[in-house]
């Protein structure tokens, strides 16, 4: 009997968190799965930890050399036999109902090719909820700025992925998921489940931390490609601006606000011409960045925010919309 789900996890020196990560999959409320663990040439005690696990659903593949996440995930997907493939990372914790909820979602929405979930990020004194956009179009639009799906939470339909000839590009040492979803969004329907089903651990020896610069650089490569879809070949200055806006790390200066307003307007204009991203989701995503930039400069959203065409598409709830109406009313009278 082939299982419904294949959970694929690549391990490279998973060390202290590995036991808990494996345990969180083996104790899932949904039991019909195989768990493919690929040891990507670990040099710590990962091999022993994996070997000490006793569960008939485990399939362990060991490699002496390190080939990188993208290559190992492709390998895992190739040997998987389940209808759905679920991703997992060696330092994360899947909440007990994760597989049950995702399988239920995929079965209820058969047109969906891949679905992710929200995550909670915990560790080193931080506890945050990261919410991701839900609909395909919202995910598509967000991909202009960043990866709109949490990689370890993703579950995809293996046959659909295969049919669309989609796999990880192993030339990407990081941001390979971002690259994949940017290609996948053209072929598959993507979605996120609005529920926290995985806990991401923040710790010092993570790839995200260890190699933050490389991560940034490779994600930047994908972002440039996303800009090209809008017919934009950014100058160095524009690239730097777009990176700052995409990574939420900008200087609190009026000149940045001005430059980013011009840039965001340009993006919207380009999308009007090229129709590369779905509307109104694209304008909403752009508007949300504009809101964040204005908020970081100022206590509350005032004239600067509301008098920009970027804010006109946003729905910020009853009270804020009223406030927007008041500010626009004032501006309309030339005040």
């Amino acid at each position, binding site marked *: 009997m082939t299982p419904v789900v294949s959970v694929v996890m690549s391990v490279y020196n998973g060390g202290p968190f590995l036991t808990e990560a494996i345990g969180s999959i083996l104790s899932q409320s949904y039991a019909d799965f195989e768990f493919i663990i690929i040891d990507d040439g670990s040099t710590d005690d990962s091999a022993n930890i994996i070997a000490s696990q006793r569960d008939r659903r485990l399939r362990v593949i060991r490699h002496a050399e390190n080939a990188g996440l993208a290559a190992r995930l492709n390998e895992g997907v190739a040997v998987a036999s389940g209808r759905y493939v679920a991703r997992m990372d060696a330092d994360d914790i899947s909440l007990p109902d994760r597989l049950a909820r995702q399988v239920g979602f995929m079965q209820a929405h058969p047109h969906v090719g891949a679905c992710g979930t929200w995550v909670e990020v915990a560790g080193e004194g931080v506890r945050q909820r990261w919410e991701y956009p839900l609909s395909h179009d919202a995910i598509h639009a967000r991909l202009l700025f960043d990866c709109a799906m949490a990689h370890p939470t993703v579950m995809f339909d293996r046959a659909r992925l295969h049919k669309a000839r989609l796999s990880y590009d192993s030339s990407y040492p990081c941001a390979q998921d971002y690259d994949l979803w940017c290609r996948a969004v053209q072929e598959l329907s993507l979605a996120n489940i609005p529920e926290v089903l995985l806990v991401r651990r923040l710790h010092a020896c993570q790839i995200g931390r260890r190699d933050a610069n490389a991560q940034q650089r490779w994600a930047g490569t994908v972002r440039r490609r996303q800009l090209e879809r809008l017919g934009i070949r950014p100058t160095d200055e524009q690239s730097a601006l777009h990176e700052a806006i995409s990574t939420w790390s900008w200087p609190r200066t*009026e*000149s940045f*606000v*001005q430059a980013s*307003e*011009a840039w965001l*307007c340009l993006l919207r204009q380009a999308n009007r011409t090229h129709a590369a991203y779905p509307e109104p989701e694209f304008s909403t995503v752009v508007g949300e960045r504009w809101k964040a930039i204005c908020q970081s*400069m*100022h*206590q*509350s959203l*005032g*004239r*600067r925010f509301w*008098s*920009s*065409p970027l804010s*006109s598409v946003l729905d910020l709830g*009853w*009270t*804020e919309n*009223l*406030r927007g109406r*008041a*500010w*626009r*009313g*004032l*501006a*309309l*009278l*030339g*005040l």
Partner: protein
Amino acid sequence: MSTRPTISVVVCTHNRAALLRQALDSLAGQTLDRTRYEVVVVNNGSTDETPTVVRAFQVTEHQCSLRLVDEPTLGLGHARNTGWKAARGEYVAFMDDDAKADSTWLEHALQLFEKSRPAPVAVGGQIRPWYVSPKPAWYKDEYEVRSWGCQARPLSAGESFSGSNMIFAKQVLQEFGGFDVNVGMRGKRISMGEETVLFNRISESLRDRAILLYDPELIVYHAVSRRNMTARYHLSRWFVAGQVACRLDAPASFRERLSRLRAGVTAIRSLMGAALEQRKLFPNHRSWMVEQLGPVALETGRLLAGMGLHLSVRRPELTADLHPSGSTAGQWSFR
């Protein structure tokens, strides 16, 4: 004068002799060739030394074509109508008596009319503060800047130019009969909206051909004195804006009027609640009042006007502590 000017600047004034001289100086110092423009000062029932100031200017700046026209009926709408009717130019620019124009204002406006295709019916730009009294620490440039962003573009529905920085093709003024004399500033009573009514009529009738071209390079500086930099003044302006908004969009039926009143009460309560919630974000209560109670004041003005109550608010006198040229905010900032 033998040659006809291409562009006429209409400056309507009511008892502002002290500031008028500077307004006229800024117009005499334009980069545009002096034979291509004229200045028409409309004296709207001034009882101070306004005529003397204008006559003195005519003597010292005799190369600049300047005419003084009287309009005894109080009201900015009346004065502006008299002004454009007296104008000989193909285009008519409007600037207030408490403002001064950037030196390239007219040259740039003319270029926009001559080079932009399809031809705009009106062009306009930004208003920036010109502090004639020292600016208190809590006061932000943002309270005075009127801008539709840092990019040149045609305005969309719901946006309009400030009355102190707008340039029309005279033909359009003729076609639409100029400004509404029933709304707007009258003598010392604060009001606004006469140009908004005109813009609305233009865009309703010409639809796609009603191009109002905004260009941030068109800059007019507006005098801000000690008396304008109070929370009380700002709130009264918000309040009056609400009254005008109600008049511009008058409810048709009794039923509609009733439902608007009900919506107005809810709006005021919810805006007030939100304002109180955000009080602690503001280090200074005055900036909190301007930014957070402003929308409340606007909705209150709208509500009272909807009930038939029109309270009039007097404009504050520009005080005598003007230092000669003041300081202008070139790059305006949030703080």
